[in-house]
Structures are given as structure tokens and as C-alpha cells.
């Protein structure tokens, strides 16, 4: 689905905003601090319930206010859907989809496809395994709400098992957790492995298009456990049990998975240049857009300062690549950029948005 309009109430520096959005997307133009990123962030929030900047609700609610609200009207062909997310400083959350309310973020997942390009994308190469898993999970959860449900179940089971092995131990209960965890681990690992198998060739080809040369950049899934069957996971957990009890946490499983980008057989991080890291991160992101749209869902893209450390030629190559992927919103800092992105521009000043007039 694509965004037809967006309404914000007390979201960051937007106290009140109603905005119609063009079908193909738009450029948000304004000086630093005007609220371009905030607007892109509100799109991410209403679609996925997440801030791509990792901000908590306290940062999102306007200063001096208690509650925020973001509403989106989405369309796909003849179909229209109204989706909203309301949240308060004391972490209450209400989601509505066509009038049905829910208090779980899971309610947002299923039909929308959204991808964020930002300066932090480079963390996909240089960042922690946790950052890397966040990328895997946010992509897979959109395509498969079952994956998200399994992941939530898994995380809860891990917390229970960790509490059990650090507290009063009970081997019967630990057996049950290990058995349930093993089912969950097998399902999550299989979905993640499948994801990397699907995107790996496109990561290579996107990278080559950017660099203008043939290279052998590859992305490799690095699971905590190279296993497939639930029984194998269960056995691994049992074998680790004593050590886990000493360490006080569950030391194996999908919550320790990662992935690596390699060039000429060596990890790009620590070996490649900053530009190569940036290009491979973007190649991963672009490959993920293909994964997100493989079931013919329309994609919404938000781009915030994602290409700034690339030269103009590469920036244009990237823009051409994502231009056709879906409805595209780009934060633009300079007039020069306005001219080479072929999209209608909206001018942003202090929480107000108006069509941009050349002059």
C-alpha cells in the first residue's frame, strides 16, 4: 500500500499536521532542524511502530505534551486502509486499523512494506550483531507476521530460561523450555537462512552496479548454530546447560546470530574503505527492497541523508536504483539536490509543510 495522507498530533516538532502525499513520493526540503527527519520518522512509526533512529516514546512526544498520535491513510488500487498509532509518555500504546483497536505492535504487520535509508545503515557492516539482527528482523517481520510471532515467543522463552538458570534451578522446567526453544530456534534459523539465500545474488549485483566493476562481494549468514532440526537444537541447548548456568545466560541461539559482508574472501569491515562499507550497506538495503516486494506488495521508502559520504555519480546511481521501487520520500538539504531528484518538493519550516515554490 502507499501513503495517501498523514496526520500528526504532538509528534516531535509537529503539534498538528495534516498532509496529503503524492502517489510517487516527495522531497522534504528544509534547513537543519526544520523537521524533515521527524516527518520521515513518523512514517516509519505509523507503519512499523518503530523509530529508525532507535528513539523511545519519550523522545517522540512533543515537549510539554503527554500523548502523540500518527494516522496514515493508505491505498492500494481500489482498497483504502486507515491505520493509526497513539502512544503516551507512560508507554501506553493503541493501534487502530480500519477501526479495530489493538495494543500490540504486531497488529501493524502484514500488508505494509517499508524501508528506511539513513546514515546509520553503515552499521549493517561495521555495527554490532544486534544492529544486524534488527535489520533481518524488521525485514522478515514485514513479509511474514508468523516470523514476528515466533520471534516474540522465542525472546520470551529465552528470558524465562535465563531467569530459571540464574535462580532456583528446576531441570524438568528447563527441559520444557529447551524443547520449546528448539522448535522456535529451528523455525527462526530456517527463515533467516532462506532470507540470505534469497538476497545474496542481488547484493552482489547491486554492489557491482554501484562500483562499476565486477567484484565478488557477498553477504553470508553467520548463525549462532549451524543446525536445522529441532532435535539438534535441543541437544545443543542441553549440552550447553551447565555452562549457561555458570555464565547466567543462554549463550547459543538466534539471539546470537549475525551476518558478514565479504569482498575477495575477506570481511569488508576492517579491510574495505569507508566508501566500500557504505556501498555494501546500501547494496544490502536495496536487496532487501526486492525481498520486501517479491509478493507484489507496494513499497514505501524513506531516505534520510543516506548517501552523504558517496560522490555525486554514485548518489545518482543509487537514486536511480530506488526511484522505481515504490513511493519514495527523501529529506533534502540543498537546492542542488532538489534539481536532480525528479519528485515534487514540499518545503518544511518549523513543523509546517507547504508545497515548495521555486524562487
Amino acid at each position, binding site marked *: 500500500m502507499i501513503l495517501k495522507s498523514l496526520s500528526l498530533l504532538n509528534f516531535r516538532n509537529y503539534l498538528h499536521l495534516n498532509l496529503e502525499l503524492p502517489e510517487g513520493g516527495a522531497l522534504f526540503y528544509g534547513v537543519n532542524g526544520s523537521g524533515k527527519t521527524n516527518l520521515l520518522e513518523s512514517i516509519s512509526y505509523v507503519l512499523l511502530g518503530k523509530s529508525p533512529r532507535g528513539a523511545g516514546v519519550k523522545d517522540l512526544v512533543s515537549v510539554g505534551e503527554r500523548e502523540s498520535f500518527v494516522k496514515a491513510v493508505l491505498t492500494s488500487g481500489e482498497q483504502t486502509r486507515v491505520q493509526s498509532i497513539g502512544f503516551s509518555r507512560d508507554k501506553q500504546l493503541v493501534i487502530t486499523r480500519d477501526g479495530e483497536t489493538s495494543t500490540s505492535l504486531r497488529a501493524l504487520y502484514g500488508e505494509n512494506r517499508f524501508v528506511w535509508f539513513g546514515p546509520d545503515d553503515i552499521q549493517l557492516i561495521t555495527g554490532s550483531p544486534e544492529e544486524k539482527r534488527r535489520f533481518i528482523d524488521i525485514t522478515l517481520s514485514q513479509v511474514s507476521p*508468523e516470523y514476528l*510471532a515466533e520471534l516474540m*515467543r522465542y525472546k*520470551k*522463552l529465552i*528470558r*524465562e*530460561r*535465563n*531467569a*530459571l538458570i540464574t*535462580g*532456583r534451578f*528446576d531441570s*524438568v*522446567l528447563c*527441559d*520444557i*523450555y529447551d524443547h*520449546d526453544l528448539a522448535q522456535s530456534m529451528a523455525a527462526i534459523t530456517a527463515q533467516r537462512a532462506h532470507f540470505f539465500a534469497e538476497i545474496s545474488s542481488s547484493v552482489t549485483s547491486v554492489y557491482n552496479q554501484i562500483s562499476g566493476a565486477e567484484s565478488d562481494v557477498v553477504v553470508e549468514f553467520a548463525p549462532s548454530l549451524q543446525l536445522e532440526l529441532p532435535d539438534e537444537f535441543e541437544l545443543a541447548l542441553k549440552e550447553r546447560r551447565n555452562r549457561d548456568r555458570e555464565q547466567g545466560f543462554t549463550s547459543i541461539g538466534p539471539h546470537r546470530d549475525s551476518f558478514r559482508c565479504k569482498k575477495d574472501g575477506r570481511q569488508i569491515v576492517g579491510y574495505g574503505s569507508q566508501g566500500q562499507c557504505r556501498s555494501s550497506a546500501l547494496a544490502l538495503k536495496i536487496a532487501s527492497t526486492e525481498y520486501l516486494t517479491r509478493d507484489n506488495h507496494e513499497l514505501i521508502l524513506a531516505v534520510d541523508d543516506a548517501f552523504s559520504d558517496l560522490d555525486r555519480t554514485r548518489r545518482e546511481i543509487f537514486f536511480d536504483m530506488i526511484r522505481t521501487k515504490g513511493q519514495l520520500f527523501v529529506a533534502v538539504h540543498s537546492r542542488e539536490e532538489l534539481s536532480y531528484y525528479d519528485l515534487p518538493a514540499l518545503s518544511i519550516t518549523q513543523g509546517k509543510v507547504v508545497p515548495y515554490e521555486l524562487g
Partner: protein
Amino acid sequence: MTDSVQRLAAALQKLPSVGEKSAWRMALHLLEQDEAISYELAHALVAAKQKVRRCDRCFTWSETAICSVCSSENRDTTTLCVVEKPRDMWVLEQSGRYRGVYHVLGGVLSPMNGITADSLTLEELRNRISSEPIAEVIIGLGGSNEAETTAHYISRILQEFPITVSRFARGLSAGMDLEYADRFTLDQALNERRVITGGYR
């Protein structure tokens, strides 16, 4: 506002599902009513707290050492239903269909919330099975992950007894339209389907 009203509102706010506004509304309402109503409430509260205790056998709330269900002669003492809390037992009692006895666990297993096996009445359950003529234990817990784990746990620790352990069926609820069932519910309904007419093929 006077200190006494404030204290009353603060006390009421400690009750479940009562927020600040409701607590104040209740406190002010009580002030406006006849004094007898306040006395009645106060007495009922204190009397309940003083008289009501846990049943020695099944751990539900009771005014006697053994509750009315456990002491009844009309119950089937070979069937025992394990429930999480007294409220669940009362719901089953209201339905009027169940004729067996109960055992109230006092919670479901969740180490991260501090609820381990020894904070539940599991040892007492085993003792009852050893000493009472129980032939079937029905696990009547809800559908949360913790309840599932607890059901599994109970079946494990009861393996040593020559009894049947069963659990409530899961799946479609009565009167539910198929088109409104989520995938998980449908999966369960299919897995736990019941044969209506058996065939030979």
C-alpha cells in the same frame, strides 16, 4: 481535600482496575451516601478477610477448613481439574457441567516473574494423587505461553502415577465463524479435531 478522604482514595486506588479518577469518584460517592452503606462495606471487607481462608485440600477460598466442593458427597472424586486461580474454578462451577473436584495452583510457571514450581501447589497436587482415588487429572489452564509450559510441566511430574492426564481442548470457540479465526486457532482446531464417525478405510 481532607486527609481522611485522601487516604480513602489512596486505599481504593490500590484495587485492581481502579485508577486515580475512579478512586476519587468512589471515595466522594461513599461520603455522600448514608453512613450505613460505609459500615456495611467496612464490615463486609473485614469479615471476608477474617473468615475466608484457603481450603486445606484444593486451595480455593473457603470459610471452612475444607471447601463446599471438596466436602460434598455428590462430587466425582476420581476426576480432578487443575485450575490457575479460584476465579477459574468458580467459572467452571457456574457452567454446572463439571462434577469432579478441583485443585487451585495459585499461578502459572514464569521464572522471570519469580513464579517457580515451589511457589505453586504442585507438591500438594502430587500428595493428593497419592492419597486420593484420582483416576484422571484434567489440566484446565488458559492458552498463554506460561499456561502451556505449566500444563507440560504438570504432565511431566505426574508421569509416575498410573492416571490419565488430559487437558482442555483448544481451537474454535462456540459460535465462532471460521472466517474470523486466526491461523493459530485454526491450526489448533485442526490438530485437535474430533472424529464424528469412524471409518474402516
